[in-house]
């Protein structure tokens, strides 16, 4: 739980800006709060909201969120063997997973620490909801999240997780290749696809065999 705390604090600021942006897009406070409570996937919430706010409509907004979330398909496949129980029980256990908890719980042998997974998800869920509530009600007080530089928190959040990995001497090559794949694909694919494609760099993990 302690390991998840710094990321949970960053999550508070992220969801705070989500609350504000949702209000600006015409959401009521309740709608913003319910979104965070039942969707609970930060990047997808931001992606869907951005399309919706720019007048993209329901279909494109949901499609964008699905693409941004698509990395959870390979991540879920990775996680699956570490989850006990039948298919339904496993599918339910896969729900609270977010990026930070998935990374923190990952072990070097490819298995996942379930205690770490659920506790770090749990504490992040709490701060994610709190941040949304504050953002949704204090939107006028907070003003434009970009003016406060809150948009830099999202990449910083992932950079913190990445650097923690790299400092352990893991994943330097795969991170570089994944980053290059994503960067190269940005202008040519819908949002979300570059990240999904970057996960293919994980196959470099086979090279030592």
């Amino acid at each position, binding site marked *: 739980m302690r390991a998840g705390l710094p990321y949970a604090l960053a999550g508070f600021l992220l969801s705070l800006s989500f609350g504000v942006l949702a209000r600006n897009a015409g959401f009521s406070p309740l709608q913003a709060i319910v979104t965070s409570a039942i969707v609970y996937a930060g990047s997808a919430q931001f992606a869907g909201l951005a399309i919706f706010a720019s007048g993209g409509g329901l279909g494109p*907004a949901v499609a964008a969120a699905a693409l941004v*979330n698509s990395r959870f398909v390979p991540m879920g496949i990775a996680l699956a063997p570490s989850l006990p129980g039948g298919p339904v029980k496993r599918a339910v256990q896969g729900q609270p997973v977010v990026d930070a908890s998935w990374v923190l719980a*990952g*072990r070097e042998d490819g298995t996942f620490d379930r205690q770490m997974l659920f506790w770090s998800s749990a504490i992040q869920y709490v701060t994610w909801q709190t941040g949304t509530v504050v953002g949704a009600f204090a939107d006028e007080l907070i003003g434009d999240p970009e003016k406060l530089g809150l948009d830099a928190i999202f990449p910083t959040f992932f*950079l913190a997780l990445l*650097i923690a990995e*790299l400092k352990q001497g893991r994943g330097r090559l*795969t991170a570089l290749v994944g980053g290059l794949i994503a960067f190269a694909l940005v202008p040519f694919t819908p949002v979300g696809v570059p990240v999904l494609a970057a996960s293919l760099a994980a196959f470099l993990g086979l090279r030592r*065999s």
Partner: protein
Amino acid sequence: MIWPLIGSLAAVTFAIKAFGPLTVGGRELPEWSSRVIASMAAPILAALVVTAALADGEEWAIGPDTAGVSVAGVALWLGAPVPVAVFSAAAMTAGVRAL
């Protein structure tokens, strides 16, 4: 329009997160797969950083947030705690934007 959006987002997210555990779990995976799985975090995280800090939607874009994230990256590499890095990223971004 907003409630259907929220419901659809929740349903899609549920389905995507359920897919792996539903289809793959409960059987032994080949030995090589664990090496791929253990190597998955770094490229996904790097891609999330790159697409958020160096792009704006489907366009490459360098902006104040790029500066903020760079500062945070140096701070993190030097051992700064995550909250410190987060605040310096936001402060740097806000500062550059205010120029």
